[in-house]
């Protein structure tokens, strides 16, 4: 009950805050659409050159990148939102006030990014509406239960990475090596904007170390080829193993960082 009340309080506060920046609020929603159009025209120009690499997914470039961007946009929220929100709380001087209350680590984790996930869900719906009504993408082959499983496993995995990343913010304020990797390399090396089969072997090996590679590939296969547990099983297993390691580790380390942060007396610093 307390956790839900805390989450509702954060949601209301963040909504009111976002609404107070009216232009930014409107531009945020419009920006979702402009990003899609860039890829639409790239497809017109270069789409056919990528056809051999897209054959396993049974789709064209625009549909591939549209799906991956929508998917990555949502799961990427988990990766970026925790550290971003925590940093904001530090910078505006409210972190110490929030952590002076009896809020638990679990409630704080859930509440801190609740608004980001709500907004990401809204963006996902915009993508879905555009896919169906504007671009008339053919998603008839999709295996939605398998896609939902991939989605859930991927969201948990990226939220864990985001929580781990926020531990750095809690302890060091600025200088977050995990966020740097997530921001600069996940989209590039994970096959969001083009299939990873384009990479030379050494870069493909690096790409195989990242959970996003498995997440994007599995999601593309389930949505465009209707792949189930048999065809996408390897990627789904990899995601499950990432989750098994990352979810408990991230929650434990975040709890530890919350517990330890008051020791040097820097909760109020930024």
């Amino acid at each position: 009950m307390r956790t839900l009340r805390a989450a509702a309080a954060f949601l209301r506060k963040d909504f009111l805050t976002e609404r107070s920046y009216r232009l930014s609020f409107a531009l945020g929603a419009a920006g979702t659409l402009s990003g899609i159009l860039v890829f639409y025209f790239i497809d017109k120009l270069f789409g056919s050159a990528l056809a051999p690499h897209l054959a396993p997914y049974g789709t064209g470039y625009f549909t591939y990148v549209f799906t991956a961007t929508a998917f990555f946009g949502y799961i990427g929220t988990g990766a970026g939102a925790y550290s971003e929100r925590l940093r904001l709380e530090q910078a505006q001087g409210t972190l110490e006030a929030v952590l002076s209350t009896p809020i638990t680590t679990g409630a704080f984790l859930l509440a801190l990014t609740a608004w980001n996930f709500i907004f990401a869900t809204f963006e996902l719906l915009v993508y879905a509406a555009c896919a169906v009504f504007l671009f008339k993408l053919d998603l008839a082959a999709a295996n939605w239960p398998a896609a939902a499983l991939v989605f859930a496993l991927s969201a948990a995995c990226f939220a864990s990475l985001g929580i781990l990343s926020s531990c750095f913010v809690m302890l060091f304020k600025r200088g977050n090596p995990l966020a740097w990797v997530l921001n600069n390399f996940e989209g590039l090396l994970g096959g969001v904007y083009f299939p990873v089969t384009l990479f030379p072997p050494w870069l493909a090996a690096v790409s195989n170390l990242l959970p996003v590679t498995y997440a994007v590939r599995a999601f593309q296969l389930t949505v465009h080829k209707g792949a189930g547990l048999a065809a996408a099983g390897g990627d789904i297993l990899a995601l499950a193993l990432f989750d098994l390691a990352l979810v408990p580790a991230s929650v434990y380390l975040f709890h530890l960082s919350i517990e330890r942060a008051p020791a040097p007396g820097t909760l109020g610093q930024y």
Partner: protein
Amino acid sequence: MFIEARGIEKTFPAPAFGGGAGLRALAGLDLKAGTGITGLAGPNGSGKTTALKVLAGVLLADSGEVLADGKPESPERLRALVSYCPANPRGFYFRISAAENLRFFGALAGLPPAEAAGAAAELAPPLGLSAADLGRRFDALSEGTMQKVSLLRALSRRAPVLLLDEPFRGLDEAACAGLLGLLSGLSGSTAVVIASHDAALLGKAAGRILRITDGTNGGEAAR
């Protein structure tokens, strides 16, 4: 309820790679405050704020313990028992109203919205806060009004222990009188600890005043 600090030591470490020595803020502080109002006096840097933060569970001591009703308590439990009003009234969300801030922090402390609003409506008038003040965006408030909202946030939790750091700072005469009245009303049921440099107001508020010197208890101050 009484709250007690036993042998609290706290040194703020020097920044990593920054050189220099750490800052010793508390050097074995012993302090006990029961139901009623206890004042904390002492020069700048003597350790008053550090002591309050350790008692509130906001800051971890290097050694020593904090007890509530004689039982050692974890920082997590202290945050549930203690309501803390910091000296700086800026730990609020500036883009939303004072009332929304109170609703938010009330929810984190476990208060349903109606209860938080009820507490604000009851406690605001003695501090000279109007409904219009509470409806105003926080960044549109004067420094003194921010301080009143900060006091309201701490008071409305109705926690068994209330710690106020420089509560009179920025308040006008009427608000100081209103605060003294509110604290007097609480003194029969709540352990209130006030740190202040305003000797006159501290004298009016507190039944006894402890002096902190160089991070240790310097005994009771003369009245």
